[in-house]
């Protein structure tokens, strides 16, 4: 059992970092896995191409909540381009546990929401908007 629900995963689930509403956010994105009932609202404050504040709210399983907690820690202070370039393997590295195929959607919800949030910003920077 310890391989999946390690103490630090449960700790992130019980007391997720960056959990809460970000009052002065300028980017906001909702994500959901309707099949599981996992939901997340991700908020970013982007200034000069850098994510300088981040917050999220929502509910879901331990894997989706821990992954959102870890991912939001990771992107704080990162450039938009670098954050947008993050891949699923990066999230799996952050989680540090083996995720079964059935739980992959839970683990990736926060990343997919982040990618959705940054897509217009990245497109604008590239002159595509």
């Amino acid at each position, binding site marked *: 059992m310890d391989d999946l629900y390690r103490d630090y995963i449960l700790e992130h689930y019980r007391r997720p970092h960056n959990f809460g509403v970000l009052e002065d956010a300028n980017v906001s994105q909702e994500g959901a896995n*309707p*099949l599981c*009932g996992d939901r997340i609202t991700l908020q970013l404050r982007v200034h000069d191409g850098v994510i300088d504040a981040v917050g999220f709210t929502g*509910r879901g399983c331990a894997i989706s909540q821990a992954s959102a907690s870890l991912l939001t820690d990771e992107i704080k202070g990162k450039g938009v381009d670098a954050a947008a370039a993050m891949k699923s393997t990066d999230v799996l590295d952050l989680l540090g546990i083996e995720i079964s195929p059935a739980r992959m959607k839970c683990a990736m919800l926060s990343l997919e929401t982040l990618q959705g949030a940054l897509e217009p910003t990245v497109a604008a920077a590239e002159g595509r908007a």
Partner: protein
Amino acid sequence: MTLTAPRPDSRIRDGRLDPEVIRRDFPILATESHGHPLVFLDSASTSQKPLAVIEAVDTYYREYNANVHRGIYEIGERSTAAYEAARSAVARFINAPDAHEVVFTRNATEAINLVAYAWGRKNINRGDAIVLTEMEHHANLVPWQLLAQERDGDLEFIPITDDGVLRQDVYDVLLRLKPKLVAFTHVSNTLGTINPVVEMTKMAHDAGALVLIDGAQAVPHVPVDVQAIGADFYAFSGHKMLGPTGSGALWARRELLEAMPPFMAGGDMIRDVHLRRSEWNDIPWKFEAGTPDIAAAIGLGVAADYLRELGMERVRDHEQELLTYALIELMREHPDLELYGRMDATIRCGVIPFNVPGVHPHDVAQVLDRSGVAVRAGHHCTMPLHERLELDATARASFNVYTTKADVDALVAGISEVKRIFG
């Protein structure tokens, strides 16, 4: 044969099922999961299969695999005879007056889609009402949504009480809309509620509506007599009643089937084909275009006979006793557990949706899995029902003829482990 099948009579002792003996008919129940004996509590999704069914499928492929209704040779005649004998076995199982009223489908979903397409497109017109319920599986909801969109029909819904029982008073009012069809589930796949199908069918008929019943969760668990129920369409899956996946059936009254245009078109469903027009085959073959899942149908026939030998009254008694035991044990050992549905085993099948406070059902299911206990987690294809009950998701344990008190005990212990990890 690697397993010795028990003597048929020993499966029943003093008029009651002996699940410990019945279990030995199911090879998968002797396997392990994560180093623990498999405790399979997801039979509402699909049931396990007894050796008799597995061997019937195996024998078909080994000894007489040939297409049906075509071959003028020995094994072709044998496969056709076995396929049609399976239809008769299914008809006996639901007490259909005529085996030709039984159409083989892949599952209940296909059976309902068949009616929505073939009957619905011909009979539902602008403003016509179809009455459904808030507890329907998506299979008995989405086909009617598509039909209503296409034909400009109206959908109305019988609401449920907070403990998951249909509001008959509201149903009575909805019938004043003079619906063309009332479609509802016999047994809820999420709450286990057994609906009063005889009374509801009579009420619909008195209001001039036809009745379709989704029997997917009923045929494995309660005696079903389509003549006594009096409905017009009865749809069910074979794979939930110990039959192979890919097996299911629609029963409908002969005159309805005869008046309906085909569902799928192709080989076997025609009598005469010209380049620009065709004539349809007789029922039920009119609705069985293309090569069917012959092996699955034969397996379903064997499953129906297996259940008939056990006796569906005895199956019902077994599950009612087990449900009572499970609800009491769960409430005693885990008073904080959130349980949904009516706490009355006399109107409920062996389905237990639950939540462990503060733990997402996915995590509950994952922890249980590590001790070999298989339950489902999610919305169980009833998103509107979960919305009505203000739930994101639930974990669900469900029973069948092979489920024992030891399985329930493993669930109760597994929930303690969930609480230990997440406590």
